[in-house]
């Protein structure tokens, strides 16, 4: 078993040599030996990553140490190495971890989680999340949830993980009234969720139940409604169905199946120390849990940039010509077709696709136009770059065109040299390795978990179209005369209204992931926003924007509070895809109206600088606010409500509902059901 972690002779000898150098206190020598052994790999083996991280630790180079400890996560799901790397990272100051986000998570479990907790920590950090974890007492998940004054609630978690296993369910081996038994068990979990929601603002992550491979009933188990096997399946189905907006369900049964159930369930370690999930499955479970966390925090990747030759089809179009390419026919051609099918499915859940290829543009586009078996079409891509410039350079230009940060991108290329160049030049872009065999492309991409989605909002489904529309609008701007003509030609309409319960998920998604047009970058949780909605002093509204190209969906949000005669803006953000459309003026107009209705005399706004929101540094000044205070870069601004003037004429018509889009662009592609 696990033969893949048995070390190759060259790695073993490098580690042996490094150990000898280390005992002679030659840390640099040891590092050199390991680094040169690592050079032979795209993802060096975990043991090597760990040794290199240790060397850097001894040399006092924390940044390199963190980098190599996290590289062990990419090397494979090797339990002991992950654990060792996690302990290296334990005492690293938060600033050196360079996390994109931090969160507090409470782990409540029905089994031993001593090992799982550090593994989850390192898996999350690999996704850019610095987790502070509170581990509940062994097996006491119910007590901790039911007791309003439990340590878990005092910890004030952002996430509450219920890591439980099927032994914990009160379901008999066989039952005459299976539906009642399942309902009773479901009621227990529902009530735990309710208690958690009443006592905290945490989002719940519920592990569902992996079904054991051992069943005395055998195949009959799947046919008898009263068997434990069927009841557990039904319970899993109900968990998924009844989980509200505040509960994320992790499909452990599926992960266990992928891993192999006879390995997932290891009775020896259950008996030895109450490990319900085999230790070698824990890294995978940690990776999946972290991916779900990342999705909820808005850290999932948004755009996939693809190479063409030998990535989307077999062969090189420049040499083989369109007719010489392998797409659709034969095992290899079918493999590329299957990969395109998967990419199309990613696109339909909202992942933006783009092309970056070293080719002449006409040659690169020809297969899409002429090859009868191509599944992907040119209009599936929001950006298409084919030239002979270095790919990192092209990726930066794609990122500008789409107005997406580099950390939203994944780059896929069959050529390891291109991947290496991308990783070196743009480490923020995720560049997963691709196997040599195209038959395994889908699996390799699927395993990265980079495109996990916590919820599917209408905006997600339509994002690909919206980015393509944005590119079109940019073209219109280039051809339109004055800026005013351009704005008018867009025929923009906006629906501005208070946050409604149906909008909550989208609102929280925006709060989680908006970086550029975000004045305060306050990452309010679903629980917090729900509290705001009940607070009579809170003025809140969202904006939906439509132009002649597309309905952009819900793209902006403002939350403010009435303090006496002042209306203070707590949060103001806008999705990057509608920046530069004058929507901010419309929102301010609306805010002024609300302020006057509430008897306020002035509006106060705050700009808190981050690495990414330089775009809105001067927003308040542009909107006619007066600077009243500045501390450590944070600026406070004020605008009198007696001031009726707004510095720009309006290009956006405020409406209660949108007019239908013109026929020619509403060709069915935009009109997907919610």
């Amino acid at each position: 078993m696990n033969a893949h972690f048995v070390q190759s002779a060259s790695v073993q000898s490098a580690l042996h040599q490094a150990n000898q150098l280390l005992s002679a206190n030659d840390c640099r020598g040891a590092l050199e030996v390991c680094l040169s052994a690592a050079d032979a790999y795209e993802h060096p083996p975990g043991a090597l990553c760990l040794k290199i991280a240790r060397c850097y630790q001894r040399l006092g180079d924390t940044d390199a140490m963190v980098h190599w400890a996290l590289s062990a996560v990419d090397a494979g799901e090797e339990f002991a190495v992950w654990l060792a790397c996690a302990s290296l990272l334990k005492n690293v100051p938060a600033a050196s971890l360079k996390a994109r986000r931090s969160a507090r998570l409470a782990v409540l479990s029905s089994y031993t989680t001593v090992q799982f907790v550090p593994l989850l920590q390192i898996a999350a950090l690999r996704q850019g999340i610095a987790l502070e974890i509170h581990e509940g007492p062994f097996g006491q998940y119910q007590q901790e949830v039911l007791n309003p004054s439990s340590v878990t609630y005092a910890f004030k978690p952002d996430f509450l993980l219920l890591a439980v296993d099927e032994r914990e369910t009160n379901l008999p081996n066989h039952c005459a009234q299976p539906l009642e038994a399942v309902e009773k068990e479901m009621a227990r979990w529902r009530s735990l969720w309710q208690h958690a929601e009443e006592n905290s603002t945490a989002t719940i992550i519920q592990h569902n139940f992996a079904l054991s491979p051992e069943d005395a009933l055998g195949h009959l188990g799947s046919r008898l409604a009263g068997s434990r096997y069927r009841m557990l399946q039904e319970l899993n189905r109900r968990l998924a169905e009844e989980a509200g907006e505040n509960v994320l369900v992790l499909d452990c049964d599926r992960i266990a199946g992928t891993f192999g159930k006879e390995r997932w369930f290891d009775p020896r370690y259950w008996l030895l120390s109450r490990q319900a999930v085999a230790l070698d499955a824990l890294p995978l479970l940690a990776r999946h849990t972290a991916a779900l966390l990342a999705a909820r925090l808005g850290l999932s990747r948004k755009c996939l940039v693809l190479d063409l030759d030998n990535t989307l089809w077999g062969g090189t179009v420049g040499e083989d010509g369109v007719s010489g390419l392998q797409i659709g026919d034969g095992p290899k051609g079918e493999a590329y077709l299957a990969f395109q099918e998967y990419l199309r499915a990613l696109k339909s859940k909202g992942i933006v696709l783009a092309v970056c290829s070293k080719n002449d543009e006409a040659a690169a586009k020809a297969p899409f136009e002429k090859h009868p078996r191509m599944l992907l079409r040119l209009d599936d891509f929001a950006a298409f770059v084919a030239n002979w410039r270095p790919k990192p350079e092209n990726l930066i230009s794609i990122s500008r065109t789409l107005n997406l940060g580099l950390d939203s991108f994944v780059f896929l290329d069959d050529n390891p040299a291109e991947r290496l160049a991308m990783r070196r030049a743009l480490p923020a872009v995720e560049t997963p390795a691709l196997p040599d065999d195209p038959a395994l492309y889908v699996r390799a991409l699927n395993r990265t978990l980079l495109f996990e989605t916590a919820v599917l909002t209408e905006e997600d489904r339509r994002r690909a179209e919206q980015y393509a529309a944005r590119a079109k609008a940019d073209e219109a701007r280039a051809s339109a005369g004055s800026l005013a003509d351009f704005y008018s030609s867009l025929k923009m309409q906006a629906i501005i209204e208070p946050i409604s319960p149906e909008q909550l998920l989208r609102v929280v998604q925006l709060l989680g992931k908006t970086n550029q047009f975000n004045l305060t970058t306050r990452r309010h949780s679903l629980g917090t926003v729900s509290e705001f909605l009940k607070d009579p002093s809170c003025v809140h509204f969202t904006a939906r924007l439509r132009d002649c190209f597309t309905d952009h969906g819900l793209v902006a949000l403002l939350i403010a509070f009435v303090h006496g005669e002042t209306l203070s803006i707590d949060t103001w953000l806008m999705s990057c895809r509608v920046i530069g459309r004058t929507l901010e003026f419309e929102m301010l107009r609306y805010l002024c109206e609300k302020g006057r209705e509430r008897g306020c005399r002035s509006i106060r706004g705050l700009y808190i600088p981050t690495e990414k929101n330089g775009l809105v540094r001067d927003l308040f000044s542009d909107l006619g606010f007066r600077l009243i205070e500045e501390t450590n870069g944070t600026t406070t601004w004020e605008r009198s409500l007696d001031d009726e003037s707004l510095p720009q004429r309006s290009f956006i018509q405020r409406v209660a509902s949108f007019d239908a889009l013109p026929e020619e662009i509403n060709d069915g592609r935009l009109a997907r059901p919610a």
Partner: protein
Amino acid sequence: MADLHDQLEGVFQTIFNNDQLQLRDDMSPPDIPGWDSVAHVNLMFGIEQTFGIRFTGDELARLETIGELKRILASRMR
């Protein structure tokens, strides 16, 4: 046997986070600082993964000396 010793030492170094840790055949759990029940589980599992073998429940629960551990490993890997 030298190979086995080195590889085993590597697992111990990983689990106990100590590059300098050196194994002798007469060592038993109390001789190695940090060898508690959690570390024991991690260690036995790390050994299984590295050597591609499986201990029995008995072997997992009971471990007298490093020498004995090496004998078990050698017999499994034949």
